[in-house]
C-alpha cells in the first residue's frame, strides 16, 4: 500500500495543478460548481479513499483519507458537494448494504452523480429520534411511506434519501424502526428549503405522501434500522471531527494573515492567543480520535467527549475572530482590523449549529455523565 508520505506528496502535487473552483455565494451556483468539483476529484481518484475498490473507492485507509482532507483544505480547495453521502450515509450502505445496493448506489454516490440526504429528524422527533412517527406500511413488494421529516440538509437537490421509518408501532420504540433508501423523484416526495440563520437555504422540510418504496430498498432487515442509524450517526461524528479540525486550522491561519500588518491591539493579540490555545487542544484531542478511527474501534462514549471538545473549540475560535469585527460586523463588505467581515460573520453563525446537530451538547453530556463517569441515571 502507498505510504502516507508518498500519498501526501502525490495529493499536494495534484492539488497544485488542479485549479480548484472559487465557491460562489449564491447557493444554486454553489451547488453546480461543487458537484462538478466532486466529479473532478472522483475521476482523479481522490473520493472514497478509504472505501473498498468494489464500491468504487481506492481501498486505502482512514489515515490516507485524513491526509487528503488536510491537503485539500490547506490548498484552500472546497469539499466535494456530496458530504452527506460520503461521510454520513455511504459508510452504512457499504457496511450493511446488499451486493446489489452497494454496486448500484455507491459508485454513483462517490462520483457525485447521486446526491444523498439524511432523513432522520422529524418535527416531533429531534433529540428523541427513536420516537419518530413517519410510517411505512407493507403493500405487496412495496412499503408505502407517509410522514414528515425536517432539517434534512440538501433534500431539495438530492436524488436519494436515507430515511428512518416506523414499520412496527406495536413494539418498544427503537425496535420498530427500519432504514429505507428512497429515490427522491418518487411520486409523493416534496422537499421545501428552510432559510437558515446564515442566510442559506441548505436544509429542508420533506413531506412524504403515500410514497411507494420497493422492499429491496430496505437497508438491512425490516425493523432492524436502529442499529444502522447509530452507525450512520457515528460516521457523521467521526467525519466531522476530523474535517472540522483542519478547516478550523486553516480559518485561524487565514485570520492571522488578514490581521498581519495592521495596528496591533491587546484585544487582537488576546483573541489570536486564545484561538491558538483552542486549536492545540483540538489537535491533541484529535490525535486520539484518529487512532481510534484507524484502529476501527466501534462507537464509545469517548466520541461524545470528542464532540464536546470540538463544539467548544469551534465556537470559541469563531466567536473570538468574529468578536474582532466589533460594530462593523453588521456592515456588509467591511474589513475591520483587515478581517473580511462577510466570511467571519457566516462562519461564526454556522458555528452555533455545531452543538445542535449530530446529537446536541446536552445529549452528549448526559452520555458522558452516565456511561463514562458512571453517575446514576436520572
Amino acid at each position, binding site marked *: 500500500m502507498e505510504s502516507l508520505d508518498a500519498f501526501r506528496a502525490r495529493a499536494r502535487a495534484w492539488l497544485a495543478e488542479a485549479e480548484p473552483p472559487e465557491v460562489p455565494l449564491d447557493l444554486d451556483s454553489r451547488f453546480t460548481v461543487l458537484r462538478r468539483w466532486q466529479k473532478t476529484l472522483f475521476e482523479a481518484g481522490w473520493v472514497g479513499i478509504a472505501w473498498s475498490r468494489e464500491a468504487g473507492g481506492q481501498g486505502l485507509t482512514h489515515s490516507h483519507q485524513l491526509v487528503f482532507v488536510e491537503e485539500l483544505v490547506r490548498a484552500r480547495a472546497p469539499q466535494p458537494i456530496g458530504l452527506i453521502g460520503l461521510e454520513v450515509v455511504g459508510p452504512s450502505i457499504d457496511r450493511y448494504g446488499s451486493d446489489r445496493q452497494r454496486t448500484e448506489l455507491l459508485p454513483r454516490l462517490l462520483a457525485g452523480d447521486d446526491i444523498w440526504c439524511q432523513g432522520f429528524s422529524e418535527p416531533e422527533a429531534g433529540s428523541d429520534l427513536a420516537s419518530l412517527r413517519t410510517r411505512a406500511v407493507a403493500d405487496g413488494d412495496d412499503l408505502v411511506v407517509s410522514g414528515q421529516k425536517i432539517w434534512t440538509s440538501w433534500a431539495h437537490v438530492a436524488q436519494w434519501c436515507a430515511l428512518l421509518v416506523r414499520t412496527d408501532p406495536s413494539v418498544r420504540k427503537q425496535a420498530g424502526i427500519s432504514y429505507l433508501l428512497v429515490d427522491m423523484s418518487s411520486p409523493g416526495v416534496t422537499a421545501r428549503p428552510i432559510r437558515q440563520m446564515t442566510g442559506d437555504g441548505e436544509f429542508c422540510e420533506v413531506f412524504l405522501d403515500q410514497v411507494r418504496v420497493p422492499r429491496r430498498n430496505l437497508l438491512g432487515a425490516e425493523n432492524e434500522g436502529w442499529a444502522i442509524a447509530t452507525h450512520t450517526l457515528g460516521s457523521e461524528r467521526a467525519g466531522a471531527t476530523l474535517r472540522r479540525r483542519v478547516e478550523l486550522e486553516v480559518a485561524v491561519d487565514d485570520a492571522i494573515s488578514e490581521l498581519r500588518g495592521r495596528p496591533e491591539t491587546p484585544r487582537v493579540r*488576546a483573541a489570536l492567543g486564545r484561538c*491558538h490555545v483552542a486549536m492545540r487542544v483540538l489537535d491533541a484531542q484529535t490525535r486520539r480520535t484518529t487512532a481510534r478511527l484507524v484502529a476501527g474501534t466501534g462507537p464509545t462514549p469517548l466520541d461524545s467527549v470528542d464532540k464536546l471538545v470540538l463544539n467548544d473549540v469551534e465556537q470559541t475560535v469563531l466567536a473570538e475572530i468574529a468578536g474582532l469585527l466589533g460594530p462593523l460586523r453588521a456592515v456588509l463588505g467591511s474589513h475591520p482590523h483587515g478581517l473580511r467581515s462577510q466570511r467571519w460573520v457566516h462562519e461564526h453563525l454556522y458555528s452555533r449549529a455545531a452543538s445542535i446537530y449530530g446529537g446536541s451538547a446536552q445529549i452528549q453530556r448526559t452520555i458522558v455523565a452516565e456511561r463514562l*463517569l458512571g453517575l446514576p441515571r436520572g
Partner: protein
Amino acid sequence: MADDEYGAAVDEYLTRAYDGDRLRELLDAGAWHPELAAELAGLGWYSLAVPEDRGGLGAPLSALGAVFVQFGRHLVVGPQLENVLVPALLADERVAAVVETGVPVAVVDHGVTEEWAEDLGSVTLTSGRLSGTVHAVRFARQASLLVVIAGAAVCLVDPAAPGVRIDELDSADPGTEFARVVLDEVPADPIPDDDLVARLRSWAMLLLACELSGLAHRSLEHTVEHIGRREQFGRPVGSFQALQHIAADMHMRWTGLHNLCLATLADADEASVSELAIMAATAKAHAAEVAVSVCEDAIQLHGGMGFTTESVVSRHYTRALALRAWYGDQTELRRRIGASLLHETDPRRTT
C-alpha cells in the same frame, strides 16, 4: 522506563505514603517539611531527569510531565518544581547536592510574569555584581542555593553571602513558602548558556501545566465520587441532570487539558527553544483557565462541605489559584502567544 511508568510509580507511592491524614497534617503545618523533601530525595525523584553522567536516571525532561501530574493529583507540597527541574537543567556541583538532600534550590526570577513586573521587582547584573529585589521567591528562606536570573544571565548565589538578604513572607498557597530576596552588589559569575533562562521558564510553565492538570483531575474524581454517593430528595444528587452536565463538562475540560499536556510533552524534547516557549505557554494558558474552573465546579458540587478546609477540593482550589499566574495566566499568555503569531518571533524575547 516509559513516561507513564514514572507517573504510575509516583502515584503508587503517594497513594500509600502521602494521601489522607498525612497530607492533612502537612497542610496544616505549612509548605516546608524537611523530612518529606529528604524522603523524596531518597526515592530518587529529584534525580529523574538528571543525565546519567551526572549520576541521575537520565530520563528525558518530558518524562517529568507524568510525575507533575501526580504531584498535582496528590497535592504534594514543597519545592518540587525547583528540586526536580534545576538539577536536570543545570550541571553544577552545588546544584547536585539537592538531589541527595532535598534541601531546596530557589529560583530568583523577576520574570515569572510580565504583567506584574513592577510588583515583582527586578535584578540587574553589572560588572559581575547582582543588585535588585524580587518580592516573591518560592522557598528562598529554606534554600541552600539561589539561582538568580538577571536578563539572559543565570548566576548561582550562596544565600549566606554578604549582600544577600532574605525576608520571610506569609503564604496563601498551601504548597509554597515565599520570601523576598534583596541583592546588594553581590559578586556573581554568570553560567555560560544562552538558552538557559528560556529553557528554565518554558519547562517550569509546562510542568506547572501538568501539575494543574493533576489538580483538576483529582477535583473531578472527588466530585464524581461525592455526587454519586450524597443523597438529597431521596436519591443521589448525581442523578440530577443539572449536576450530571456540570460533571460531564468538567470531564470534557480536564480531558482537553490532559491531552494537550500529553501532546505537548510528546513534542517537547525535540522542539527548538522558541517553539518550546510557545508550546509551553499554550499549555500553561489552558491549564490556568481549566484547573481553576474545574476546581470551582468541584466546590459547588460538594455544597457546604466544599467550602470547608476539611475538604480536599478546597485545598486543590487554593493551590490552583496560586499556581494560575505563576509563569503566566491565560490573559497574559494569550496576548504573548497572539503577538508571536502576528510577528513570528520568539515570544519570550522580552524579559
